């Protein structure tokens, strides 16, 4: 399953584009050499070509075995050993899709490589009796419907894990599952009888069983709609929509507008709701109670829905409390299954390359003057961060091929180390100073901001499709001279790098024109040579900060691209958009290297892990997913937010993740254990910016409510003991300590905080557009 990415992107109606399964290509071995060489092949979209595995792995022997060959081989199991059977079913579905789209060559390749020839037939027979008997029939629908039935039958063994990622087969197939129905007039009776039952059970069970309300409600409503019982559906909605948890309001608003079968077909979010089974976690006792009740009452309608559309993750032990449930629920897809977050994640940092730092005498003297104790401290710090030991939790150094360090990168690293010795140690007693970069006269609407790591450049994306780059230092921005002029330069001279710059073009800011829609994301490359911007026009563009021109336009999303982010080592970048997938790109490839599919709604923000081996995405479906760059697997799935996620930040040590959403809350996650470990309440509006201080002691959050808040992240991490028990069960008790953790709240004047950045010395930079209204 993980070997290729599922076809989940919407097919745009405007452009006829072929989509085929992306065969996962091994990542390039030595990308650094080709880094800037992006004048590759023409950008035609050729489906046939695309599906061919690009075997580029010349020296990737270090890659993990199953991908080293660069071809499809047995898929690594996603979580806790997903049954192979399921994978194959999905494979078949894909095959059908390819066939239907006359992509015969791809079909052949896929069949050959997945060794499916034999299994295909037998597989179809595995379906639980339903459907027609013919094997690999030309009618895709019939086959697929069998596949979906087959998977629908699986919940009989609800305890056996089911693959995380359900494929999304054809629309009509999805909906056909709703065709089996009971008497529509009895739906209200069914639902209210269950409701009465749940309300009558013991308190400890009630909270758990109440989780059933929302998914049942939605499925029953959709069934009624699907079967053209419009009035009954409306009555049903009227009667029971009030019972749902407040954090489902947004969904309900969408639902209540949807009353026709035709409308249902066009609504991807609800189709996804249907295909991805809503996950509930219920203790065994509560589950038994429910089961007994439904069987006694012969409430088959409900039982069927539970069996077919819900995934009940049963655990042994005490039922969870209401607050425990509330902290984890709220997503569009239910909760996380326990086994999903069991996969090993190498969250440690990569070993820093050993670079001799030439000791600068001046610096030393200056430090002596400042005072000895300080010097001692900082020295220790720098030692700590430069630890030569391999972090046990770190991935192998070359798990993901990374570009080689250039001389300029080494220089920059030295600069970084020097700066970090002067870094201010932050803490509750020692809060950072805040500099606010206000964008004035931003009538065209500031939509995205980024700083370079050394805080020397500042980029803004605007709703008028422009990207503007400012110099945050007195040094002005200059372009490289034209080719003709460059020819005249003495290339042997020492200051050739200075000479190639055109002094006439020096200015404080540069405008980059090229997009044809609002620019929703900007990201600097770590070496400050490139800038990425993602826009509503469906493209991601790579700009050169030497020439201030556009180098590449990466097309692939075809829908608005909400966010993009460069890998901390450069070369790779990730983007996510309205097509509900995140894509991993390399700057010198016009096709994505990986497609991370699984979110049920738009991918709103994307971030690279500090070790570049993982990518995290937040979505409008109110979930967060951590993806393994190596194999494209979703290795962590976090639920708990009650609104679309708009900001994400990794702690500098890579162990923790912070996420902010429209609900005004920041949630903290332990990546290693896959647990929520903190909830920071206080903001009153969407949190658009999150950043950890350089040492991770402070978390800064910036919001639409015109405030920056500082949180004691150290305390938050320390307070939460992730003992084995909580790690095993995933049941967390969140202390309500937001007020203790809040170290400061800082107001800006009518300026929503769009971006936050800690300088290398731990000065906090905030940016936003002044809003005169």
């Amino acid at each position: 399953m993980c070997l290729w990415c599922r076809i989940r992107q919407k097919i745009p109606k405007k452009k006829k584009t072929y989509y085929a399964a992306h065969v996962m290509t091994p990542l390039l071995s030595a990308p650094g050499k080709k880094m800037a060489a992006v004048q590759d092949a023409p950008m035609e979209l050729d489906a046939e070509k695309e599906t061919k595995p690009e075997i580029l792995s010349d020296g990737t022997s270090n890659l993990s075995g199953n991908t080293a060959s660069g071809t499809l081989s047995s898929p690594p199991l996603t979580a806790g050993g997903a049954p192979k059977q399921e994978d194959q079913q999905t494979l078949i579905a894909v095959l059908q899709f390819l066939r239907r789209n006359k992509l015969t060559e791809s079909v052949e390749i896929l069949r050959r490589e997945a060794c499916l020839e034999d299994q295909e037939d037998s597989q179809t027979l595995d379906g639980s009796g339903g459907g027609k008997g013919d094997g690999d029939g030309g009618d895709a629908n019939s086959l697929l419907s069998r596949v979906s039935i087959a998977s629908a039958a699986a919940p009989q063994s609800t305890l056996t894990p089911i693959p995380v990622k359900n494929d999304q087969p054809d629309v009509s197939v999805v909906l056909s599952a709703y065709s089996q129905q009971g008497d529509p007039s009895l739906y209200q009776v069914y639902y209210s009888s269950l409701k009465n039952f749940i309300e009558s059970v013991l308190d400890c069970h009630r909270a758990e069983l109440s989780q059933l309300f929302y998914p049942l409600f939605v499925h029953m409503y959709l069934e009624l709609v699907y079967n053209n019982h419009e009035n009954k559906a409306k009555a049903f909605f009227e009667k029971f929509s009030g019972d749902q948890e407040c954090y489902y309001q947004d969904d309900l608003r969408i639902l209540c507008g949807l009353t026709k079968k035709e409308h249902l077909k066009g609504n991807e979010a609800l189709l996804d709701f249907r295909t991805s089974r809503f996950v509930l976690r219920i203790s065994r006792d509560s589950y038994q109670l429910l089961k007994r009740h439904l069987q006694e009452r012969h409430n088959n309608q409900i039982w069927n829905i539970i069996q077919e559309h819900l995934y009940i993750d049963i655990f042994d032990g005490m039922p969870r409390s209401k607050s425990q449930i509330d902290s984890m629920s709220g997503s569009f897809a239910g909760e996380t299954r326990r086994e999903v977050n069991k996969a090993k994640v190498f969250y440690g940092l990569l070993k820093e390359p050993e670079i001799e730092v030439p000791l600068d005498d001046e610096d030393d003297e200056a430090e002596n003057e400042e005072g000895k104790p300080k010097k001692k401290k900082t020295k220790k710090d720098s030692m700590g961060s430069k630890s030569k030991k391999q972090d046990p939790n770190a991935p192998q150094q070359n798990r993901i091929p990374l570009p080689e360090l250039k001389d300029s990168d080494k220089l920059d690293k030295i600069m970084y180390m020097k700066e970090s010795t002067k870094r201010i140690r932050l803490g509750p007693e020692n809060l950072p100073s805040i500099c606010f970069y206000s964008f004035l006269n931003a009538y065209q609407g500031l939509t995205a901001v980024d700083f370079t790591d050394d805080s020397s450049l500042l980029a803004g994306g605007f709703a008028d499709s422009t990207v503007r780059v400012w110099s945050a230092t007195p040094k002005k921005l200059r372009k490289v001279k034209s080719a003709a002029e460059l020819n005249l330069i003495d290339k042997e001279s020492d200051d050739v790098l200075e000479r190639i710059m055109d002094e006439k073009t020096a200015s404080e800011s540069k405008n980059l024109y090229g997009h044809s829609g609002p620019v929703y994301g900007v990201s600097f490359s770590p070496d400050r040579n490139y800038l990425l911007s993602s826009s509503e026009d469906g493209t991601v563009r790579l700009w050169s900060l030497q020439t201030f021109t556009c180098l590449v336009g990466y097309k692939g999303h075809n829908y608005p691209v909400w966010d993009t982010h460069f890998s901390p080592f450069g070369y790779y970048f990730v983007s996510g958009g309205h097509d509900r997938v995140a894509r991993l790109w390399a700057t010198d490839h016009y096709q994505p290297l990986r497609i991370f599919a699984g979110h049920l709604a738009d991918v709103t923000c994307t971030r690279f892990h500090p070790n570049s081996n993982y990518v995290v995405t937040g979505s409008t479906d109110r979930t967060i997913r951590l993806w393994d760059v190596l194999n494209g697997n979703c290795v962590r799935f976090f639920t708990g937010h009650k609104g679309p996620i708009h900001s994400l930040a990794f702690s500098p040590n890579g162990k923790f993740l912070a996420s902010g959403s429209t609900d005004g809350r920041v949630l903290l996650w332990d990546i290693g254990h896959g647990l929520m470990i903190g909830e920071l309440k206080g903001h009153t509006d969407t949190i658009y910016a999150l950043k950890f201080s350089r040492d991770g002691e402070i978390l800064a959050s910036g919001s639409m409510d015109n405030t920056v808040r500082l949180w004691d992240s150290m305390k938050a991490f320390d307070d939460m003991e992730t003992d084995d028990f909580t790690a095993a069960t995933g049941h967390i008790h969140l202390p309500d300590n937001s007020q203790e953790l809040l170290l400061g709240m800082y107001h800006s004047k009518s300026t929503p905080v769009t971006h936050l950045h800690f300088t290398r010395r731990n000065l906090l930079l905030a940016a936003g557009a002044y809003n005169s209204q």
Partner: protein
Amino acid sequence: SSSQSGMTEREERRFAEVPRESIKLMAESSGVELSEEVAALLAEDVCYRLREATQNSSQFMRHAKRRKLSVEDLNRALRWSNTETICGYGAQDALPFRPLKEGELFFVEDREINLVELALATNIPKGCAETMVRVHVSYLDGKGNLEPQGTVPTAVQSLSEDLLKYYQQITRAILGEDPHLMKVKSVSHDLDQLNRLLHMVKSLVQNPYLYLGSYVRSLVSSVMYCILEPLAASINPLNDHWTLRDYAALLLSHIFWTHGDLVSGLYHQILLSLQKVLSDPVRPLCSHYGAVVGLHALGWKAVERVLYPHLPAYWANLQAVLDDYSVSNAQVKADGHKVYGAILVAVERLLKMKALSLTLAAEGSGAGLPGTTTGAVSFRENSPGLSPPPEPLSEPPLGIASHLQAGGAGCPWEEWTPVSLPAMYCELYSFFGDSLAVRFSTGLPLGGVPPPGPCQPLEGRKEPASSAPNLENTRKMPQLTASMNISPRQDGSPRMEPQPPSLAATVPGRSLARSSSSSVSRSRSSSSRPGRSTSQSRDIFPKARFPLPQAGPPAFSFIIGGRQMGRRCQGRRFQTSFSPTPPLTTHPPRAYAHKLPVIGRVSKPVRRWTCSHYSLHLPL
């Protein structure tokens, strides 16, 4: 179909809906005939699509990091669902949406534009300014910068949400929309702003729930600035910076009395800086004026310690100014008179208080006070030792009344010779001549409690005082009257700072002041002053102070406040004077304006003060 209508009814409650009639109309307008059924289906679908588009558009809004859904957002959603976009509604301003009374029709107003006029218009709109980035350090080490540009001081951060809103409103009320105001110096050209700032300081000081702590020092320094500095506003003689200085001085003393204990050595620091200004002949007269007023506000002991010893030296300078009758000197001379008046007031009170203190000491703390004495007097007895320099506070009741009378009708009571301080008096008299004595005579009787010795003459003289002929004044103060003609501004006569507690007495005085200020010439003391007001002030004077109920309605609430506060602590007496007690706020500001204690001449500023005062105070 009945069920359908019932359904649409229900739906109408949930969303706005496009009725099928509209659909039919639209179809007809494009030449298509639709059956009822088709129209109904279409209407429903259109509604759904619209809702869908709206929901999608909200995503564009969120990603643009806005709160307001724009037409552009909806257009993007439409574009992505392959629908034609709506053109012509991209303007940022809200479009007026009007109903048509006949028929339930709503439409966007679309005025005709005269293109010729537009093309020939001379007011060509300027292009919008270049987008730029400005950086400022908002918070240093997590603490608010003292000059919060576009940010809120840290002290505010701890406030709850409600308080924060309140804070924002207050700052807006005080600062207007100008964020640069926090610095006094930057606004020294704008008296209004300075006034507002001072009022803000006052309300800060008055707020009993506020612990100012170390902020007192900075407050004092900014108030001192207003008192002493030659403000940019002073350049224009039309600016009434005198009032500002008076008010600031008052405020200074108030801060000092109420919060002086928070900062050690404050008193001496203030005195020193005042002294420095006073002894610096290079400083402009307005600074000197400020120093004198400041000293006066700090109490007679301050006057005695600083002003009195400096007087001989200073007098020479002042005299030189006053004696120069050249036209070019007119303005300076006017200022000189101002200073003269201020010194006079200060010195007179000094004399009075000194006399009083002596007599009181002799009498044993006013043991012999008759029950009929004023609250002010009785208060004075109780409190002498309470706060470090208590006297000035007890004095005020006399202050205003006396100066009013003095300003009005100079009374020739210079014959009075204080037993206790003849030397001082002699010296002062040598400077001021007749104009000095006025205060004595009128003041003391009011002070009540006349000790046998000095009192007797006073009692006797009271009569003449009340009938004081205006002529006297003109005779005794030739310089003043002359100067008045030069500039209406200058109020050479000792128009006193607003010793608040004696507000009752101020009432008539205020009206008097106003009437006089409105008259262009200085003749207020003699001819133009309406006899009514003079006599009124005289008549009311003794009565008004004690019997609360009968005095003018608004004025009296004041006095009550004054007295009660006074009992508790002397230091508070000032406060009472300008802190409008709650009932006051209900009075119309205009009425209040008359009662506001003011130094110097007040015409417009009074009202403005009160207004701003009100705006500040009401929320508190």
